[in-house]
């Protein structure tokens, strides 16, 4: 499985603020190495965040997202103690899911 | 004086000269430098680590030389000034503009060396504000915006500007500015192009706001 991501979720007013730091090279497929060879593309394409089985964020990413992406967003309807799951799938079919308890 | 005595005198002078050129300032630091760069080739040592008189003096005095030392440096650096053989002090300002933006060249080592043939430039924008349209300019040196507009481009001004780029320490001992001509970093033609970038009335450096 890919490197773990760091997920935090906290109640903030009437929303839950979710922050996810993902470990990923996010290669665009346009960079070259020291030998001049093109480094193949390898980037997260789909991000899905769920809470109690409901999708609260769905994102389709491309090559403009930088390496080790940091995602931060809010959603309504979450409460302390509940679980938020962040999942990604990349262009090579690799994937990772991590979760956090809402504080 | 006998020939033998004269030779002995020459050898003694040569030994003294080489020891001062090796930077006799601090033997503790010398040993540490030698250890850190033990794998440097003799060429790399000569070109990048060995200190000439000005470098050794400026290091020892932390770039604030007392008056006698400053005078000594001024004199020795003035003696190095060379004008181009073809007498052309002002070249092509557009070529100079390109050189002013190039900051690569001359990097060695295993981690991130420059590929062979990577162009060297003056990297002037690292330290100087120049053409008003270039926002990303440093301030280690004074602003050069309007340099030619303020000074004109008489033969004397061309000569001063050329010499300053060739060896800034001929005018300001222990200046932070690299001695581009004296150290062989820029060719006479490249320096002339930079002179043009500064002095040519049509240059972007002298464009009105």
């Amino acid at each position, binding site marked *: 499985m890919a*490197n*773990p*991501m*760091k997920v935090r979720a906290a109640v903030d007013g009437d929303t839950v603020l979710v*922050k996810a*730091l993902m*470990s990923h*090279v996010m290669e665009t497929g346009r960079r070259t190495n020291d030998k001049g060879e093109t480094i193949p593309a390898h980037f997260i394409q789909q991000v899905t965040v769920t809470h109690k089985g409901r999708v609260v964020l769905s994102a389709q990413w491309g090559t403009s997202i*930088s*390496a*080790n992406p*940091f*995602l*931060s967003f809010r959603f309504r309807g979450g409460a302390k103690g509940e679980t938020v799951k962040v999942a990604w799938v990349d262009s090579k079919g690799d994937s990772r899911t991590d979760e956090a308890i809402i504080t | 004086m006998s020939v033998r005595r004269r030779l002995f005198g020459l050898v003694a002078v040569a030994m003294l000269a080489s020891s001062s050129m090796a*930077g006799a*300032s*601090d033997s*503790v*630091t010398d040993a*540490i*430098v030698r*250890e*850190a*760069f*033990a*794998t*440097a080739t003799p060429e*790399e*040592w000569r*070109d*990048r*680590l*060995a*200190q000439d008189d*000005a*470098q050794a003096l*400026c*290091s020892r005095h*932390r*770039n604030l030389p007392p008056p006698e030392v400053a005078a000594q440096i001024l004199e020795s650096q003035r003696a190095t000034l060379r004008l181009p053989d073809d007498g052309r002090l002002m070249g092509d300002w557009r070529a100079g503009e390109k050189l002013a933006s190039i900051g690569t060249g*001359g*990097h*060695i*080592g295993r*981690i*991130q060396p420059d590929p062979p043939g990577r162009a060297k430039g003056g990297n002037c*924008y*690292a*330290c100087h504000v120049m053409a008003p349209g270039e*926002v*990303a*300019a*440093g*301030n*280690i040196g004074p602003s050069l915006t309007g340099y030619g507009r303020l000074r004109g481009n008489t033969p004397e001004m061309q000569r001063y500007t050329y010499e300053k780029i060739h060896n800034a320490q001929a005018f300001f001992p222990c200046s*932070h500015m*690299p*001695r581009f001509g004296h*150290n062989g*970093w820029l060719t006479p033609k490249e320096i002339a192009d930079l002179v043009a970038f500064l002095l040519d009335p049509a240059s972007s450096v002298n464009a009105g706001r």
Partner: protein
Amino acid sequence: MTWRMRGLAAVAVLAAASAVSIVAAATDAEDHAADEIRKYRQMLEDGNPAELMEMKGEALWREARGPTGASLEACDLGLGPGVVAGAYAQLPRFFADTGRVQDTESRLISCMVALQGFTPVEATRDWYRPGSDLEALVTYVATQSKGMPIRVPVSHPEEARLLAAGGELFFRRSGPLDFSCATCHSQDQRRIRLQDLPNFLNPADARASMVTWPAYRVSQSAVWTMERRLIDCVRQMRWPEPAFGSEAIVALQVWLQHQGEGGELQSPGIKR
């Protein structure tokens, strides 16, 4: 005045205001650029990818590895075996068991060799590649000193020797561009292009800078340690590459940390 006229007037005022602000922005181009960089840095502070390296580093610290199958949990970083909290704030320092002054990397390598049975070559392999084991370990160790004041010991003769040497090295000029560290780092309020430069002769600047290392460098997609930063500075000076862990690099760190004494560590930082 009709609503329509009021609306037109409002648009005219807005247009005039924006024209004025565009002119102001053109003449304040430098300030605007610096401002935008400040905003960018603030945005980056939340969610520092260095935290990923910290997690990796902690895992490596606890993992049984190498020929002996031991973890690094008995490693003495200067405050006793296994004490990580506060260690980075007091490094580099003299270690009796190795008989020399060592920085964080050097000390970790000693432990990898002594406790885990790695050879020095194995321990330092690819140290400068983004995401390397050493990068992760130093990030973890440094983060355990967050909030603590920098205070490196300089009383041992070897510590004093390297402190003095570090100061000398800072001013040592050589090479085709006549550079020394002092060329860029000895005056207040200077920058190269738009990159602000700390003046290490100014204690306030030195503190503000030293507390931000190690730092995730966005342009490199990697955490850079102080040793990594110094070795790259030497490269930029057009000198040959200094040996990793050499006394020269440790001496510079002793001097720099001493200049930054008292600063409260914010490690890991985040930078361009």
